[in-house]
């Protein structure tokens, strides 16, 4: 089992300035670990992170898009696994930060708790590559392969709470966050 902040810090080291769609608890951690204008913070409705990421991946085929999904969120939009696999964007990396909890909603367990096999869901949906990461050293070893793989890639990160960061709800819904991302993406795409 990995500490979530340790796993995300590792990702930030290897992926310092690319597009990331973090959702809810992962977003709160990610904003502190890797503050960056290319963090797409405003997903609006629970479960929608993977779908926003698909739209970005289709719109920016030359850019890698990483989504840091939550288990409760993905359970609310499981069909997106099939949609993403069928659309098959090579530049989309779908990471599931799996803690078995609705962490921002009172730490109540998700249906199925920690017993769900999300990797099997993704394989069954047809993702090009699937990785199931339980330990930090394992993730560290495989991460370069994940980041260079042809997608869509699905990665399960089995995590527990690490350091606690502020829950900045204003940032994940603000017009400023959206405007900052839009400007940064335009600049990136303009080369």
């Amino acid at each position, binding site marked *: 089992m990995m500490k979530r902040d340790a796993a995300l810090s590792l990702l930030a080291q290897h992926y310092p300035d690319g597009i990331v769609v973090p959702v809810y608890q992962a977003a709160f951690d990610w904003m502190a670990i890797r503050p960056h204008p290319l963090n*797409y913070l*405003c*997903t*609006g*409705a629970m*479960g*929608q992170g993977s*779908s*926003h*990421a*698909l*739209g*970005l*991946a*289709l*719109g*920016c085929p030359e850019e890698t898009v990483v989504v840091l999904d939550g288990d409760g969120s993905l359970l609310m*939009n499981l*069909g*997106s696994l*099939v*949609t993403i696999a*069928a*659309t098959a964007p090579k530049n989309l990396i779908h990471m599931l930060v799996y803690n078995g909890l609705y962490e921002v909603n009172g730490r109540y367990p998700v249906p199925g708790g920690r017993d769900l096999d999300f990797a099997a869901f993704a394989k069954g949906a047809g993702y090009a590559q699937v990785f199931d990461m339980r330990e930090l050293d394992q993730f560290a070893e495989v991460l370069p392969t994940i980041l260079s793989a042809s997608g869509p890639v699905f990665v399960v990160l089995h995590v527990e709470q690490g350091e606690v960061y502020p829950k900045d709800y204003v940032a994940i*819904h603000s*017009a400023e966050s*959206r405007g900052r*991302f*839009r400007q940064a*993406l*335009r600049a990136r*795409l303009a080369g």
Partner: protein
Amino acid sequence: MSRGIEGAHIIAAVKGAGVGFVVTLPDIVTCDGLLWPMTHDPNLTVVPVCKEDEGVSICAGLSYADKRAILLMQHTGFLDSINAIRAIAVEYGLPVVMVVGLQGMEPDRHPSDSASYGLRTLLPIIAAMELPCLVLEREDQVAQIGQIIEDAYQKSEPFVVLVPQPPLGPEATRSESGRAPVERAVSR
């Protein structure tokens, strides 16, 4: 009423407004006249989704990359997607253009007068959500579609186009039953 509107004219208006993506879950009203021809159009990328609220977010994501899209769906899918539309399209002010087939809509009636509860309540719901809307009932309204899409993207705001009756498809896709020929479904 919309019976007799050429689907090709709607498609031309959509493409003329710079739309390159059609995000969709098939709807019986729009499938033959719009979706199948769009699927075969090399200048459009059709993205089928499993549930319509995915489409709201996909259109949002595309918009940040300055890529234009429409979300083509049935009115039941619109109703099922209200929370995503509320948050992403309305509260975030993003250009999500929805083209919505009214499944079960009676000919010669306006949606407000439908005997169907799900159809009769649709316009009041759209109004309550403060969504701009066009009920596409006549061929001469097709000319508005291009400007609607242009305005949605210029102003960064959503729009709903309701399609009460099936637009006419190309001759090859028309059938007496209104169903897609089997060979097209297989070829897909």
